[in-house]
């Protein structure tokens, strides 16, 4: 078979790279996002076809088989996953990408004579393996396979320093003489470093780490592009590395945290450690019928959904309740905190799944001034994102995080499972305020009862 000449190959890779840029650009707006993603997928397909027709390849049946296996594993999982479990799936996909980059770099070592190329290999090995292991830990935390609380032990920073120094030493030797054994050591050190990096990150910060590891994998892919002399890998990896970095910072800013604070906070004791103690203080709890009356005779209602809603799979009921209230002439909006759910932007996905039009989903900055003119703020399964401690208690782990100002509304109704504090493990003073009413129970059950009572009004 005649191979495609280098000019055409370069042009096709350039087209694929342009597709990736358009994909990221399209993801900026809900109107163009889906098209953008499909353009990205087309670019990927173009690139994969190009590699088959432009490079002399042996073992093609094996390669096609491996691609079939990978697709056979990934597509059904991606199609069937519950939207609530999206964050861990993204973590998993990110991890395997990092692992693939590390393996490619490892295998290229025997062909690399140039010390600069070996430097790129060392970087890919370390960062790719780190991303793989770190994503694994993130997955375990989000999937509930291990505690979501920060895991620290005395000497962790020292151990991390030792691992990184050892990696620097092994890396130097690999660059000098291309030792395969030390490259394997480097791979293992990368895995250990990834685990150590993510272990001390707790609770609500875990999703930010996914974004950071995503950027890491991007950089590892870019470096492997340098190793293989493949411009497309360089461009695609760098794009993801750069955009991932910006995205990580944007997410951290939405939580009022710095990325460094998230990664190393637990070392200094400033992380989202919190407690899981249940308070004994008195609160005003109420029945579904009372809540229905509050809602049904209001002029303006803002629903604040949180992860509890998603866990209970109550999105659809919440959407129905909004429709029922709108049918009574009540103005209803959903106020979405940037980090509501388990991952920034997660709640938007969950409500979109329940067919809530994205125009009804208001961002925090747009809706915060409207709570003052709101009769009832209905908080469903959210806690930390409405906790005034973020503004008032300087010692609190969430201090500085921008919150939804539900306390400004005339009435606040919390639908809660129990008095247990939220993901970050911090007591919410708002629960004890006089304008607050609580309705205990599973978010979906409570919403169903309230919906029934509203319809009966």
């Amino acid at each position, binding site marked *: 078979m005649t191979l495609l000449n280098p000019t055409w190959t370069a042009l096709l890779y350039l087209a694929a790279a342009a597709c990736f840029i358009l994909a990221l650009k399209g993801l900026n707006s809900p109107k163009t996002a889906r098209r953008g993603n499909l353009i990205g997928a087309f670019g990927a397909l173009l690139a994969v076809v190009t590699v088959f027709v432009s490079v002399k390849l042996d073992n093609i049946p094996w390669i096609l088989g491996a691609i079939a296996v990978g697709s056979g594993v*990934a597509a059904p999982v991606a199609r069937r996953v519950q939207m609530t479990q999206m964050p861990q799936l993204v973590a998993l996909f990110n991890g395997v990408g990092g692992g693939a980059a590390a393996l*490619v770099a490892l295998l290229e070592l025997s062909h690399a004579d140039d010390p600069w190329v070996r430097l790129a290999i060392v970087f890919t090995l370390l960062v790719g393996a780190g991303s793989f292991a770190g994503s694994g830990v993130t997955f375990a935390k989000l999937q509930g396979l291990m505690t979501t609380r920060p895991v620290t032990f005395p000497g962790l920073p020292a151990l991390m320093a030792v691992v990184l120094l050892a990696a620097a030493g092994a890396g130097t030797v690999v660059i000098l003489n291309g030792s395969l054994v030390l490259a394997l050591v480097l791979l293992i050190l990368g895995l250990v470093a990834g685990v150590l990096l993510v272990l001390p990150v707790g609770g609500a910060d875990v999703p930010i780490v996914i974004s950071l590891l995503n950027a890491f994998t991007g950089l590892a892919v870019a470096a492997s592009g340098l190793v293989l002399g493949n411009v497309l890998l360089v461009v695609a990896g760098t794009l993801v590395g750069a955009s991932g970095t910006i995205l990580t910072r944007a997410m951290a800013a939405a939580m009022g945290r710095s990325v460094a604070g998230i990664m190393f906070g637990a070392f200094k004791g400033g992380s989202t450690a919190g407690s899981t103690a249940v308070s004994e203080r008195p609160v005003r709890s109420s029945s579904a019928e009372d809540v229905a009356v509050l809602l049904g005779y209001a002029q303006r209602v803002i629903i604040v959904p949180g992860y509890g809603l998603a866990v209970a799979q109550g999105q659809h009921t919440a959407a129905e309740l909004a429709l029922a209230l709108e049918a009574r002439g009540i103005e209803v909006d959903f106020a979405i905190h940037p980090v509501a759910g388990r991952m920034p*932007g997660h709640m938007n996905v969950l409500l979109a799944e329940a067919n809530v039009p994205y125009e009804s989903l208001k961002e925090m900055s747009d809706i915060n001034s409207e709570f003052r003119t709101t009769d009832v703020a209905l908080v469903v399964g959210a806690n930390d994102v409405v906790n005034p401690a973020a503004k008032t208690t300087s010692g609190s782990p969430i201090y500085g995080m921008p919150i939804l100002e539900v306390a400004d509304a005339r009435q606040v109704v919390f639908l809660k499972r129990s008095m247990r504090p939220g993901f970050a493990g911090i007591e919410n003073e708002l629960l004890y305020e006089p304008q607050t009413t609580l309705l205990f129970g599973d978010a979906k059950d409570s919403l169903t009862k309230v919906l029934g009572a509203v319809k009966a009004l």
Partner: protein
Amino acid sequence: MDGMSLLTITVLAVFVGFEVVSKVSSTLHTPLMSGANAIHGIILVGAIIVAGQAADPLVLAVALLAVVLATINLVGGFVVTDRMLEMFRGRQRPPSNAGSGVPGSPGDSGAVETAHKERRQ
């Protein structure tokens, strides 16, 4: 390609990467992260090259593992992002309303925005 050209491309790609996501709304943070995640699955191209040049069975086995992992990243990433974005819909308009009936098309949602504001006043 020489080192200087690669460096130039890398630096320019950094700026493009910063620029394309600098104004993204928090509404789309999850799909954007997932979409960017899919893009680095393009390491599949590297894995295919390495597997296609493997002579030793052990090298081939490791390379094929890389192909499987990279495919999971690439295919899974794009499929799951598409599934998420498929659900992002604009407000449905009654069919009697003239104009584009496709939800989410630019003209449609502009009109929706106006209708929404009118309702407020």
